[in-house]
C-alpha cells in the first residue's frame, strides 16, 4: 500500500519515484507541472509554431515517463532534464524544417492576449511575431539562452545546467543574444508601436 503524500508540495524528483512505483496521482501532478513549461519553451524556440511545440512537449514528456524507472535521484533536476530534451527536439525539428523556422509576420499565430482592446491585441500579436522571427534569426545557443533567461525566467546556474556549460558562458550567450535581438528589431520599433507606447519611455 502507498503512503499518503501531498502531491502539490512533493518535489519533482520525489514524484518521479512515486510515478515509477505506479502512483497515478504523481503522473497527474508531473503532467500539470512540467507540460506547460515545456510547451511555452518549445513554442518560443520554434518561432511560435503551436502545433510543433505541442508535439515537442508530448514527446519530451513521453521520454520523461520512459526514463522514470531508471531516474537517479540527485543527479539532475527533472525540469533541467526536460528543458534539455526539449531543446534537442526543437533543434532537430528546425534542422529538418529550416524554412519553417523563419516565421513571417503574415504567418504569425493568433496568440491569445488578456488585453481587451482589439487594437492592443493586434499590437501584441505583431510584437510576439516580431520577437519570434528575431529569435529565429539568432544562433541556436544564443536563442536557447535568451529564451530560458528572459522569457522562461530561469536563473543563470539553472540555464548552465540545462545547456551543460558554465555560468559565465551563459552570461556571454545571453548578452550577445540580446545585442543581436536589438539589432534585428532595430528597424521594427515603429512598426511594433513602441513610438506611441507610453511604456517605451520608461
Amino acid at each position: 500500500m502507498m503512503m499518503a503524500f501531498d502531491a502539490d508540495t512533493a518535489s519533482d524528483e520525489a514524484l518521479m519515484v512515486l510515478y515509477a512505483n505506479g502512483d497515478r496521482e504523481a503522473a497527474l501532478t508531473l503532467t500539470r507541472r512540467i507540460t506547460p513549461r515545456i510547451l511555452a519553451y518549445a513554442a518560443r524556440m520554434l518561432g511560435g509554431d503551436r502545433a510543433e511545440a505541442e508535439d515537442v512537449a508530448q514527446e519530451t514528456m513521453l521520454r520523461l515517463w520512459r526514463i522514470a524507472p531508471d531516474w537517479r535521484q540527485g543527479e539532475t533536476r527533472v525540469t533541467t532534464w526536460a528543458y534539455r530534451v526539449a531543446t534537442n527536439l526543437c533543434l532537430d525539428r528546425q534542422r529538418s524544417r529550416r524554412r519553417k523556422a523563419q516565421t513571417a509576420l503574415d504567418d504569425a499565430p493568433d496568440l491569445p492576449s488578456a488585453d481587451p482592446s482589439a487594437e492592443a491585441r493586434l499590437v501584441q500579436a505583431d510584437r510576439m511575431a516580431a520577437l519570434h522571427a528575431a529569435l529565429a534569426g539568432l544562433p541556436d545557443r544564443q536563442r536557447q539562452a535568451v529564451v530560458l533567461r528572459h522569457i522562461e525566467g530561469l536563473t543563470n546556474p539553472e540555464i548552465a545546467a540545462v545547456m551543460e556549460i558554465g555560468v559565465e558562458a551563459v552570461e556571454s550567450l545571453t548578452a550577445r543574444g540580446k545585442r543581436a535581438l536589438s539589432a534585428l528589431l532595430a528597424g521594427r520599433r515603429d512598426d511594433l508601436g513602441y513610438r506611441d507606447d507610453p511604456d517605451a519611455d520608461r
Partner: protein
Amino acid sequence: MPTDDLDDLFAAARADRPQPSDALMQRVLADALAEQPRPAPRPIPRPGLLARIAAAFGGGPALAGVCSAAVAGLVIGYLNPVTYDYLTGGQTGTELVDLFPATDFLSSEG
C-alpha cells in the same frame, strides 16, 4: 531597439505564455498512464513442509486428530494395561466366575 523596449518585449512574452490545450494535457496523461510501470504482483509464498503434509491429511485439524490417535496408540501399546487395575478395581481380571456351579442336574433324568 533600445534595451528598455526589448525588456518590455520580453515581459510581454512572459505574460503571453502559451497555455497547453486540454487535448494536449489528456494526451500527455494518457502516455503517462500507458508507460507507467505496473507494481509487481506480490509472489505467492510456497507452502512449507508441515503445511503440505497437513494438506495431504485434509488440513490442520484433521492432521491434529491423526497425530492424537497415533500418540494415544503408542501410549497404550507401550504401557502395560495391568498397571491400570487400580482403576478398574480388578474387575477386568481373569478370575473365573462359576455361574453354574453344578450342571449335573441337566443330564439326570427324573
